């Protein structure tokens, strides 16, 4: 096992991650990314909480301070199992306000304040720098273990070079996958997938080493516990302050760390994933920390005194000759470090570009921002440079701090810095009284105390803060000694920093908030954030815009890209009932657009950009007060009223329709009654008259035959009329028995055409006989009857010069239908409603041979058969659609 082989393995592993990330991006682009949005992947992506600090540092931590390392995982456990309290609200706010980062959250909450966003960004970058240095240090150390194991040892220069190479590699990977799309609200599928895989690798590696230590070396659980009790950390010795303080610190850090905010809130695809992560993520942390103490104890026991306990996970398998296990362990540590750095730099780069670079850029060209070139290019470039910059800072810290500090100690420094955003964040989502002055005061106070009492001293005594100041305070003021503020000495440095920074930060935040008055926009945003579950829709922040829709489109295209922006505008236009790309510039639309833009460049910038366009028309205090708070409730109430009145309107319309139908029917019915009495009387009159004549003696046999023929015809007409009436009555009462047969549609239509007695001269029938081979199982005689009726109707009523009837079988929504369409003038809209009613007859009475029962019978038949018949408007002529009996047609296919 040479050092070069190790490098090869590491490179192969990175290549493997590249492939995974590429594949995930490809699948997502092809619309198959659904499975990357599963709760499992979400939980695994949360595991970036467990960095190289956990992988290497926890064992070192345990070897130095016993069980104290557990506090770093117990604190987050409490936050995550209590997801209903805080996380759920954060995620909901993040989604409804399109939050891109923790800086965006705070900036957006406090009136989209650009200054506050920048301040949080600065704190986050400063606090994350030691953390990133920690990862570089751990990867470099793990390389050096293998290098020193071989023939050639490593000097400090080699270590520095390795750290530089690792940093450069991470910059390339992160830029490749992290800045592909501008919208930070879109999930980075490739990266999420890669860190999920890394989560599995690091868990497997640590558990494998643990299993080897407990069962391979330790001799089982009982023996290992006995070994622990015989070790230097055998006794439970925890200072209460550190135990409780660190648990609070890590719990707060889970909420405030930029990278955790990124995976928890920004990359969250579905709020319900939290319910799974609530137990799965603590389980993951438990598995990660289960074997830490055994590894530490066995390492202390077996390895020579003075070995770096941070590297036991690697050196222990190596010392036992288990090279394979050591390599797995190396990959686990490598995974832990790289996944953290990647996500952390993405989160920080988003914040830097959205809250520092773009606002400054916009300000520098305030007048020409609207017409100038593509903002996307600027934002992306800013983001890429920020990634490189953040890693460079980490490298510088690594070099300055000398790379010799215990990993856990560095991590804690970072935690204390990052949690300075906690009061502003929690206050922002639970307390409507919080103002931006309060938030700024709290953040500045906390940041200053952190820097003075923990961050600057961490470079080493005398490096940044002179030794004299450390011992006696600046200018000899003892009350301001960095590690003994207010003259209280002897507190643990970390607890000291947490205690004072949190107390004074919260104090400044509360006092500042109480003493100042929020701007209208702040009050509005405050109500939106605190009451996010009451009304998740955004309230309007703009009055009727003075900006033209076209100006807005031009600007949005520059930020969102042409396709995306046009899609949004088109959707909005469609929602307003307009065609084309330019919707009415309503306050609602502007608010929607602002939220969309915020997803790319952050709330403050989006607000400023829209503000430039709407110039002067932005909201007045009265407008804002009107929509805030109580007004929001009234609005909600009025939407409810609107919904109700819409419903009433619907009902009224239905009633009106029914009434019109009834009136039409009653008119039709009167007409029918006179018609039917006429129809009955006419044959009756002729029958009576001719039978009287037949009674006369002396009629010639020829006349006799003639009159008898007339009587028979008239009697037949009567019978037909009565048959129809009877048929309809039977059908309507449901007394009809169906005679099911098997057959083909083609034969049925053939029979119908023949029986309708349509000659070639009357009407031309167009069919597609080839398509009509559909097999049917139904009452074919009845179906034929329906077809005969439709064909005969067409022949009778089609008023074209060369009448044509098209019979066409096809499928609509998976249902077989037969359309009968003629080329006549069709049926007018008023009549369409009543043609299927049984007493209806249309227009020209003289032409009609029947009594207006045909279509009513057809409808009854089709209903009995399980199909349907309907008039098909807008086909050029009269068109009837017969829906074939569904289950039977299906069965026959």
């Amino acid at each position, binding site marked *: 096992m040479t050092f070069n082989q190790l490098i090869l393995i590491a490179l192969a592993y990175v290549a493997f991650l590249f492939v995974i990330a590429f594949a995930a991006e490809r699948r997502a682009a092809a619309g198959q990314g659904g499975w990357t949005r599963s709760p499992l992947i979400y939980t695994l992506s949360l595991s970036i909480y467990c960095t190289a600090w956990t992988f290497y540092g926890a064992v070192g931590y345990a070897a130095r301070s016993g069980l104290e390392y557990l506090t770093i995982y117990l604190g987050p456990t409490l936050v995550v199992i209590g997801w209903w309290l805080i996380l759920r609200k954060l995620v909901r706010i993040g989604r409804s306000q399109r939050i891109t980062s923790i800086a965006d959250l705070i900036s957006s909450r406090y009136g989209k304040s650009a200054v506050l966003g920048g301040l949080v960004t600065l704190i986050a970058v400063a606090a994350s720098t030691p953390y990133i240095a920690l990862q570089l240090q751990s990867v470099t150390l793990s390389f050096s273990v293998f290098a020193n194991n071989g023939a050639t040892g490593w000097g400090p220069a080699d270590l520095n070079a390795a750290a530089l190479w690792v940093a450069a590699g991470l910059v390339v990977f992160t830029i490749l996958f992290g800045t592909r799309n501008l919208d930070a609200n879109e999930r980075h599928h490739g990266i999420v997938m890669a860190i999920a895989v890394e989560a599995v690798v690091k868990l497997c590696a640590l558990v494998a080493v643990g299993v080897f230590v407990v069962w391979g070396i330790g001799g089982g659980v009982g023996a290992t516990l006995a070994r*622990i009790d015989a070790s230097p950390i055998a006794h439970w010795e*925890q200072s209460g302050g550190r135990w409780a303080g660190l648990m609070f610190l890590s719990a707060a850090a889970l909420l405030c760390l930029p990278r955790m905010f990124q995976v928890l809130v920004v990359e969250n695809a579905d709020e319900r994933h939290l319910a799974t992560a609530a137990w799965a993520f603590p389980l993951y942390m438990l598995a990660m920390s289960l074997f830490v103490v055994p590894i530490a104890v066995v390492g202390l026991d077996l390895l020579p005194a003075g070995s770096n306990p941070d590297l036991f996970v690697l050196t222990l398998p190596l010392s036992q000759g288990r090279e394979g296990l050591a390599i797995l362990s190396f990959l686990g540590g490598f995974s832990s470090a790289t996944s953290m750095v990647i996500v952390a730099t993405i989160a920080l780069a988003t914040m830097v570009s959205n809250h520092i670079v773009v606002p400054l850029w916009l300000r520098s060209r305030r007048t020409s921002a609207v017409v100038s070139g593509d903002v996307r290019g600027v934002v992306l470039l800013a983001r890429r440079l920020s990634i490189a910059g953040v890693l460079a800072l980490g490298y510088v810290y690594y070099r300055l701090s000398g790379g010799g500090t215990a990993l856990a100690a560095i991590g804690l420094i970072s935690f204390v810095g990052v949690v300075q955003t906690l009061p502003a964040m929690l206050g922002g989502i639970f307390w409507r009284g919080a103002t931006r002055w309060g938030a700024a005061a709290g953040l500045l106070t906390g940041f200053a105390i952190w820097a003075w009492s923990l961050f600057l001293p961490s470079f080493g005594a005398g490096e940044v803060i002179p030794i004299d100041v450390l011992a006696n305070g600046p200018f000899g003021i003892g009350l301001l000694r960095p590690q003994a503020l207010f003259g209280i000495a002897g507190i643990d440095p970390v607890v000291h920093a947490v205690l004072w920074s949190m107390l004074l930060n919260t104090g400044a935040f509360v006092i500042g908030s109480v003493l100042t008055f929020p701007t209208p926009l702040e009050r509005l945003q405050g109500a939106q954030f605190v009451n996010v579950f009451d009304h998740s829709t955004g309230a309007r922040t703009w009055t009727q815009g003075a900006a033209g829709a076209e100006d807005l489109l031009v600007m949005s295209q520059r930020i969102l890209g042409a396709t995306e922006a046009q899609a949004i505008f088109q959707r909005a236009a469609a929602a307003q009932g307009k065609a084309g790309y330019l919707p009415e510039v309503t306050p609602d639309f502007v608010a929607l657009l602002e939220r969309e833009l915020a997803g790319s460049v952050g709330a403050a910038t989006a607000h400023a950009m829209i503000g430039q366009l709407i110039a002067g028309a932005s909201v007045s205090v009265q407008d804002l007060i009107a929509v805030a708070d109580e007004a929001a*409730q009234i609005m909600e109430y009025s939407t409810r009223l609107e919904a109700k009145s819409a419903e009433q309107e619907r009902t009224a319309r239905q009633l009106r329709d029914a009434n019109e139908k009834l009136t039409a029917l009653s008119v039709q019915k009167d007409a029918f009654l006179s018609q039917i009495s006429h129809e009955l009387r006419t044959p009756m009159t002729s029958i009576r008259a001719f039978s009287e004549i037949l009674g006369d003696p002396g009629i010639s046999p020829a006349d006799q035959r003639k009159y008898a023929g007339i009587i028979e015809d008239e009697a037949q007409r009567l019978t037909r009329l009565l048959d129809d009436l009877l048929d309809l009555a039977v059908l309507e009462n449901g007394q009809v028995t169906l005679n099911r047969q098997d057959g083909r549609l083609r034969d049925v239509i053939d029979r119908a055409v023949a029986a309708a007695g349509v000659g070639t001269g009357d009407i031309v029938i167009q069919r597609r006989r080839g398509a009509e081979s559909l097999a049917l199982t139904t009452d074919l005689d009845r179906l034929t009857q329906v077809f005969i009726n439709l064909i005969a109707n067409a022949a009778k009523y089609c008023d074209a010069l060369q009448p044509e009837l098209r019979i066409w079988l096809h499928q609509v929504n998976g249902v077989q239908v037969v359309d009968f369409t003629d080329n006549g003038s069709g049926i007018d809209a008023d009549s369409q409603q009543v043609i299927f009613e049984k007493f209806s007859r249309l227009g020209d009475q003289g032409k009609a041979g029947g009594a207006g029962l045909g279509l009513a019978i057809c409808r009854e038949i089709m209903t009995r058969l399980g199909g349907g018949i309907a008039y098909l408007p807008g086909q050029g002529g009269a068109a009837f659609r017969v829906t074939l009996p569904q289950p039977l047609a299906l069965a026959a296919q």
Partner: protein
Amino acid sequence: MTSPPPRPPVFVPRASYRQRRIRDMARLLPMVGAVLFMIPLLWPQRGDGPGTGEVQMTSGAIVYLFTTWVILIALAAIISRLTGSDDASGDDPAAPAGRA
């Protein structure tokens, strides 16, 4: 238009009632966990002075902490399965309580 929106009902059906109590449990669980994780601080330590009797061993502490942890995870799993994530009942003290 000017009349206030109807207040949420004071008494709710049995199913909603059960749902609300489960949410109460979801809110309570982290507090319970915090108390359980603080209990080890009450154990006798070596520095507590003479006559404090037996000193707690690390192995016992490991067993206690990890067992508690597993129990909390199990409870969280059960509760999160039972909580419907929709807040249709509008019962969310965390939000309206913050009304300033």
